[in-house]
């Protein structure tokens, strides 16, 4: 019964800010980000780790936050879409998404951005197939895949200058 759901105190750093909170043991990182921390930029869609809308960075690793229990994120560093802008300015990748027309309805975009940031961190000079493979876990029903790829490429090229 609900009353008996056990909670555990966890500490984690989200977008550079340390947070300590009691989380239900059955709640996912996605639940905690959206419902407890009110960071609603991370989106909820399939809940089975297939669509990528809930992608966040966990200790530098890309995860579907719907598949990570909140307790597993204890002591972790988490970056969400809200943490991508620097000093109130959108990141070059975010800007490239706008410039290249990679955003239509926008619902998948937080996940795409977090995944693409990680992809560039790991591989600063990706090829088109590497980008397509790297972002294959992030569905976009508006079909912006070409523009998303262009935005990632343009960001990599700009950074190389």
């Amino acid at each position, binding site marked *: 019964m609900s009353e008996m759901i056990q909670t555990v105190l966890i500490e984690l750093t989200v977008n550079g800010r340390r947070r300590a909170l009691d989380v239900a043991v059955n709640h996912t990182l996605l639940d905690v980000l959206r419902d407890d921390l009110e960071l609603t930029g991370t989106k909820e869609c*399939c809940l089975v780790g297939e669509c990528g809308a809930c992608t966040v960075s966990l200790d530098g690793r890309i995860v579907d936050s719907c598949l990570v229990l909140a307790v597993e994120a204890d002591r972790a560093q988490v970056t969400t879409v809200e943490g991508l802008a620097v000093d109130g300015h959108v990141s070059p990748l975010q800007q490239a998404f706008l410039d290249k027309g990679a955003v239509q309805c926008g619902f998948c975009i937080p996940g795409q951005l977090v995944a693409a940031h990680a992809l560039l961190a790991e591989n600063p000079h990706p090829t088109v197939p590497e980008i397509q493979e790297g972002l294959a876990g992030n569905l976009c029903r508006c079909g912006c895949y070409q523009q998303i790829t262009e935005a990632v490429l343009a960001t990599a090229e700009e950074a190389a200058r």
Partner: protein
Amino acid sequence: MRTDRIGGSPNRVGGIGRVTGSQQYVADIRLQDVLEVKLVTLDCARARIISIDTSVAEQVPGVRLVMTAADLPQPVPRFGPQLSDRPVIAVGEMKYHGEPVAAVAAETKDAAEEAARLVKVEYEELPAIFSVAAALDPEAVLVQDPALRAGDPRATTNVFREHRFGWGDVAAASADLVIENVYTFPMVTHFAIEPHGFMAAPDGDGIACWSSIQHPYLLQKMLAKILGLPLARVRVFAPDPGGGFGGKQNPKLEPLVAFMALRTGRPVRLILTLEETFQAVRRTSAEVRVRTGFRSDGTLAFQDIAADYLAGAYVDIADRVVSKGSYPACGPYRVPDARIVARSILSHTPPSTAFRGFGNPQVNWAVESNLDEGALALGIDRLEIRLRNLARPGEDFIPGDTPADGDWGQTVRRAAELIRWGSPLPEGRGRGIAVGIKSGPTTGLSYSTVRLLADGSVLVYAGTSDMGQGARTVYAQIAAEELGAPLAWVTVVMGDTFSVPYDQQTSASRSTVLMGNAVLRACRAIQDQVRTMAARLYGSDESAIVVERGVVRLPDREHAILEVLKPGLGPLGGELIGNGEMRKDPEPDHPLGGRPAFFEFNCTAIEAEVDRETGDVVLVRHVTVSDVGRALNPLQVTMQDEGAAIQGLGHTLMEHYTFDERGRIRNLGAIDYRIPTSMDLPLEMQSAIVENADGPGPYGSKGMSEGALLCVAPAVAAAVRDATGVAIRDLPLTPERVWRALRDRSTS
């Protein structure tokens, strides 16, 4: 070119919120003291509900309400855009897999989910109908209660309606060659990445409702009717939907959450899972028999088309999908004699609704594929047969309908050029080409208010839902163009029926044309006031002053609008307010209730290679060319065009519901139902446009958001056939289906 103005591609208005995560979709809005709702469903396709015991569920701490049909006004209110047949919640019989039979509202999601599992429903599973053949069996049970359409002779069958269109006399028509085939189109779902979300809250002595909906004003009307409230007590908030594609056009569970909010006196919130969304909306599947008569020179002699569309348990807008989608079934061609019989057939499946293309892709798949059969049999090039039959500009190709409103041959030739039609191909590759046509909106009513503020900045009020198509950006561009403001000084207000004037709906690729014209007219109304101001300020005659595109032209000088506005408003400041209305009235004598405002016309050409070992279809090149009249924002046009094309690849290559023998959908959710990913793109995709400024929208624009989806399937299948010699008439062209077709050919 990147300018703020018309024909430029400024960054999306509202884009910043979308890349920073601050854009609030329905599920992101936090209402104080909100209750979470969870639906109770049964794991079968159809059932008689014997009893519902809520007592255990009500004991779960935090549960505030378990609602069943018994808790609603009796008889339980029904609603629907075509027929009021859908009950607020299942009554007596659950008619499709996923139809809610009860709903729990609790303080937490956990409590709501737990209680939903504890609602005890005693039910008898009943045999379900989930195919056209089963629905048409004379012994078939009736899906719908005949009392819901009393007086209709078809009420005692599962055929909801039969539409008969056409001209000439097909029975008497002769031809040198007749080709007849049956084509099937699968049941697919929208899969917007944002699952549907609904909230409601008591609002004074009225109700407020939040929904990711394309038609907020229709929702307002329906809620007012069901709840017995005046429109002015029903406030609908429609935050930008996270993808719509037609699936979010019509109200679904909003009446249920409204009753729950009124019953509890609290805000309530229901965010569907993706699985529940799959059970809420889908495209109408179809079986289409086409008999095409050809002359030996390839000209069309007749078309004889019978299309059976499988609708769901409730009509929703499916019958309109059938009539509007099948009416132009003969395509953009000159056809001397035509007969079209299209039926909407009820079944125990989720309600089928509008989906990008609106009934056209189903018949287009059949008719375009059959045209290829004729070309091959007659030894005529597949491009040539299309050009030979294509309606010329202004031609009355569907008698009594809007004449051909574009130079369609230009579009087809451009696609042929881009795919290098006729040039040699490597072994194992093939090409296909197909055209698609869709009627635009047949009626419409859009109002806009534009306010030119004292500093020259602008507020545009437009009731369109911006679900990704970029309406907000286009309206801002129109206002910037007409009033001379930089784009960054224009704000577009949407999504609240209490502050934004009425708009009929966001559908049929109408918004640039209809609301766009309303915005333009509102801006022109402001320009008229500026002209009066200028006449007063400069002692000039009004008739000698022209105000256009942000500039005031007097006989002896020119001013920016702002230069006239400031002195014109005087020391108190204030603002100028303009109203614009765009109306397309119904034409009762037209079979669709009105001629379309425009046609969407697209030509898609494909180069493909087929892996004969696996049946995998590799798209080497995908070309889409749309006649858009005028691209107000070329980048957004490309995005919509490519997006439609990629969505079309879904039903062409991979997407379809699968049912078990009891009518349950077996592939709910993202694991078992695959949509195109970044790995499924054609190796090369090219979107091009034809612009002749011949549309009815602002600056000659036409609607264009669906065209590139219409004829993907026939173009791909034609390329597969060209590569392998095998014709496949059932979608999707999965590797298994292609592999089997290749194997059957080699063994036969």
